[in-house]
């Protein structure tokens, strides 16, 4: 019987020939990631209570991204605790203010097809763009992983989502995900989403990461894309040697059983905007009724990679951010900032009036700089717009692609980016 890629990875990690959806297995963890907010400050006291140490420091990646740079003594203390614990446990893979955790896993060359990975963060699904399994877990379970190196899980059924055809200019992966939040809903618990089709194969690794990242908004356990030459090239670019044949054998069988198969035509999609206060409140940009904005935000693991900054620059080149609007840009990693400085992207953005901020989660989860006051309206390239996530509970956040955020910054109201791309 045919198996999906997710089932094959879980079978391998559980030491079984095959597994079926619904089955509960205990899987050996190849990689465990957590960050300053979910990690040491929550896990260290539990490990102490157990009198245990990290089972294998070489399999752990720690990233300080939520509280960077420190804005008060409390956040500074969390960052210090994280540094001290990483040193004490002998963990080598530690990224301190280098970028956002999900982006650092890719940049640092930690991901490759077939791995079974766990993360102390809900958007851990993003790693699946590299053909591996990764899901998010709470602090107690991550403590368990730190002690034993394994975790139990219920094998998810796989939903296949195929996109075929070419996008119109100005339509990108972010629009796909906002559209899927509405059409597939946000209640896909215990499901793995597998993306495919020629549209997905044509996407850059960075755009594929948007699809897997926002599978978290679909409520999915994990998301995955079968590896191809782009996957291998990205892994090599991160400085990791990889055996092509071994990596490319991680694919779903042609006769694999999917719980559902959804097919979409890329040419039909127009830029999407999610209205407050949920990603599933999405629709064509015109339906956002040109709402007036106070802030435009380009940030987060999902929406501030180099390609995202380049999208914004394409719209903003030679133009200005509207008076009374602030455009904040928090690149997803230090390397992104460096690359954007080198290729001229940053200069275009700052000339247009953008404020460039440190790399980190920033305002995305309301912990860092750039949060909103009551009554303020923001359009953001991040992934969630739940009430109160980006600051005051009475602020309103719209979600859109970097193109749409940039066009809106120019007009001071939610705007269709397509007219800026001709």
């Amino acid at each position, binding site marked *: 019987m045919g198996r999906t890629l997710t089932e094959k990875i879980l079978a391998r990690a559980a030491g079984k020939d095959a597994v079926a959806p619904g089955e509960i297995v205990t899987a050996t963890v190849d990689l465990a990631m957590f960050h300053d907010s979910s990690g040491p400050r929550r896990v260290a006291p539990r490990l102490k209570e157990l*009198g245990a140490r990290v089972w294998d420091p070489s399999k752990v990646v720690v990233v300080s991204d939520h509280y960077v740079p420190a804005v008060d003594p409390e956040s500074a203390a969390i960052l210090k605790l994280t540094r001290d614990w990483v040193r004490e446990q002998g963990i080598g893979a530690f990224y301190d203010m280098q970028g956002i955790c999900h982006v650092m896993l890719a940049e640092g060359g930690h991901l490759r097809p077939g791995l079974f990975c766990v993360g102390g963060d809900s958007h851990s699904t993003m790693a699946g763009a590299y053909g591996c399994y990764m899901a998010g877990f709470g602090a107690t379970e991550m403590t*368990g992983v730190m002690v034993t190196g394994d975790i139990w899980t219920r094998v998810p059924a796989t939903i296949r989502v195929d996109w075929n055809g070419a996008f119109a200019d100005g339509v990108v992966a972010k629009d796909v995900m906002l559209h899927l939040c509405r059409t597939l809903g946000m209640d896909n618990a215990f499901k793995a989403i597998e993306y495919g089709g020629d549209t997905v194969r044509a996407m850059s690794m960075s755009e594929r990461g948007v699809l897997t990242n926002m599978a978290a908004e679909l409520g999915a356990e994990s998301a995955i894309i079968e590896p191809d030459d782009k996957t291998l090239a990205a892994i090599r670019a991160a400085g990791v040697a990889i055996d092509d044949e071994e990596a490319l054998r991680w694919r779903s069988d042609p006769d694999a059983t999917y719980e559902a198969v959804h097919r979409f035509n890329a040419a039909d999609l127009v830029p999407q905007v999610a209205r407050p206060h949920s990603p599933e409140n999405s629709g064509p940009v015109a339906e956002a009724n040109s709402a007036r904005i106070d802030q435009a935000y380009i940030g987060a693991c999902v929406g501030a990679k180099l390609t995202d900054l380049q999208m914004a620059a394409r719209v903003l080149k030679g133009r200005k951010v509207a008076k009374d609007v602030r455009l904040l840009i928090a690149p997803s990693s230090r390397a992104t900032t460096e690359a954007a400085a080198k290729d001229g992207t940053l200069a275009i953005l700052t000339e247009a009036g953008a404020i460039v901020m440190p790399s980190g989660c920033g305002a995305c989860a309301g912990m860092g700089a750039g949060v909103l006051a009551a009554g303020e309206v923001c359009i953001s390239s991040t992934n969630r717009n739940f009430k109160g996530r980006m600051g005051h509970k009475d602020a309103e956040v719209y979600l859109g692609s970097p193109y749409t955020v940039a066009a809106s910054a120019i007009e001071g109201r939610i705007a269709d980016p397509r007219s800026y791309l001709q």
Partner: protein
Amino acid sequence: MISGRAWKFGDGIDTDVLAPGHYMKLPLEEAATHCLEAIAPNFAKEVRPGDVVVGGASFGIGSSREQAAQALKQLGVGAVLATSFARIFYRNALNLGLPALFFPQANEIRDGDAIEVDPVAGIVRSNGREFRVEPIPAHLMVMIEDGGLMPHLKKKLARA
């Protein structure tokens, strides 16, 4: 074998109904006395050890608060059966030592029915009928019987 009275609920029993946010500051024993009170005012008073909660779709949807599962366990609930669970509630329940089983035939059970559950064999019995469900593997039942993940880890480390 778990056996007791079935407490039947519908779809979408959320974490606020199971563990009202309002009482989260109280110790667990007190918070648990308010479990499900919004929809079943007598539940906390009348539930007996071994009773089984039977729900519909998306049981435990909402926040990640562990108290939602802890409150049921504190009250002596032996198992939760539901047509489907929210992922975090489901994981919390098992990790806190409360068996949770997917039970597609939940609609066959009425409130107040006598019910028996064998989580390892994957059998539910009620009204003279027997239903097959996806079992909890023995290796996970060891953790559940130890009282959950943390007590289980403690025991494991003490042995090592």
